[in-house]
């Protein structure tokens, strides 16, 4: 059964308290972030239904929001999601080469996940790091001024992190 941890449930209550009485639907976007983090990095239908239930809104209200915003994953992703920016300012500083390098290095195309389930490559539009391009988002943080060497180091770091935590 899908159920938030105690800690997350408290967080949900704290978020709802930010809005006036009866406006708990406003908590939907932050709560979907929590759900994605807690339930495997993507939003499966039962997870969205659960969110609808705890916010007392209809499931369709959750689906339409979840599918609108690009940060919600509608299908499973690898443990480490590389989201590489490809918009103009990053392109000017070589993001195409970085995307190609990651493809070759991991042996996957855009939108694909490595066989070991560790890495997914996604291309995204402008993340507001244009002065530090090329860049990608990895979890909560930005990896900026990317070079092939830096990409190698990031991949290694992810692999050892995963090995330690398994």
């Amino acid at each position, binding site marked *: 059964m899908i159920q938030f941890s105690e800690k997350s449930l408290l967080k949900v209550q704290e978020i709802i308290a930010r809005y006036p009485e009866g406006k708990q639907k406003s908590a939907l*976007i932050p709560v979907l972030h929590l759900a994605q983090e807690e339930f495997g990095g993507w939003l499966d239908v039962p997870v969205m239904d659960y969110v609808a239930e705890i916010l007392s809104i209809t499931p369709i209200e959750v689906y*339409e929001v979840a599918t609108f*915003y690009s940060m919600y994953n509608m299908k499973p992703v690898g443990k480490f999601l590389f989201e590489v920016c490809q918009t103009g300012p990053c392109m000017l*500083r070589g993001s195409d080469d970085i995307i190609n390098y990651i493809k070759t290095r991991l042996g996957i195309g855009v939108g694909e996940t490595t066989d070991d389930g560790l890495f997914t490559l996604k291309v*995204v539009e402008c993340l507001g790091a244009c002065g530090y391009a090329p860049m990608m988002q990895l979890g909560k943080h930005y990896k900026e001024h990317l070079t092939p060497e830096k990409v190698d180091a990031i991949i290694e770091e992810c692999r050892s992190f995963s090995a330690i935590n398994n």
Partner: protein
Amino acid sequence: MSTKLLLDKANIEGIRFYKAYRENGGYAAVEKAFKMTPAEIVEEVKKSGLRGRGGAGFPTGMKWSFLAKPEGVPRYLVCNADESEPGTFKDRYLMEFLPHLLIEGLIVSSFALGSNRTYIYIRGEYAWIPDILEYAIEEAKQNGWLGKNILGTGFDCEIYVQRGAGAYICGEETALIESLEGKRGNPRIKPPFPAIKGLWESPTVVNNVETLAAIVPIFNMGGEEYAKIGVGKSTGTKLISACGNINKPGVYEIDMTISVEEFVYSDEYCGGIPNGKRLKACIPGGSSVPILPANLLFKTAKGETRLMNYESLSDGGFATGSMMGSGGFIVLDEDQCIVRHTLTLARFYHHESCGQCSPCREGTGWMKRVLYNLEYGKGKLSDIDLLWDIQRRIEGNTICPLGDAAAWPVAAAIRHFRDEFEWHVLNPEESQVRNFGLAHYADAREVAV
């Protein structure tokens, strides 16, 4: 000469935290403003001439004075931190390094507008910044600047941080409000404007991060003094986020009297173009505003020196000028391909179109596909006119300005670089390996030196 009002304290050790911020004059603007009436505060902001720093440049004091004040209905201030315009990363810098400056500006503004619940709506990708802001909010609260009965005035205020989840459109104020209500970011039809019916149907003001931060120096120095900085209707200072092919990408604070040429070549700012390359083109105000070739960047069509301010950057209209926009300054060197660059922007707008209005939903995808063909050597000469036609039919025909924002970069690229598009069509194979020659796009500086 450089006047710094926002970033003057950015290098002070520990300025991100309350202690250092307060010791260096922080929260003095709140002390000053809370001795005034809300109406006097609005007047002071009007006197400063401050214009919205998010992109539209609308006078802030006037926007505030439009706020409806019906009895018994709450009013809201929402800080727009959904910074998503390609080339723009100034608000991120402010929030990351000077969170208390924004909080201080928000407290003064909330008091002026009578907002007891103020929200900072931040783009979801800036996932580490809410922690920084929430820490600063907590510090401000501990020290009596937020919460109940602030400074004994009887005014209560809480500030909350709301994360978005990846949608450029939520930078548009009514889409932002929809998103804050837990919905898709579909812009609303106006009127009614948010000042009458905004968040949860209540009167609402939405202001950009930099605009709200600028409230602090305005009260520290007085609106009239603030208005003396700059030129004409471009008062105060502006943050410019510079990127692309320059030696020193980053966030710079300028007073709006410096020339574009100085901004590009001075070591105090961009530091010139790397590897001795020449400047080909520049988008001076975020990806939506028209691109300018080098020969129109440093000088206007009338031959006057172009300055980094609202009026000068837009001198010549869209025919030979551009816009200040959000201050996202994107520089392209001689090796860059205008067709490819325009394709990435068209792809961006297609990705970000909310899909509500058909000219934008269909038109952005169509422009992207035509540009893709041109870029990859599969284009026809008639495609250039087709592109022009599509962008013309999007502009002005949508609920929100995203349609215009998608149309303008394509129009400007064709207007100024039509021969480069034609060259792509006529040299499909060669265009895959090298870019169109420079000819009349030669660096203005080259002539001068």
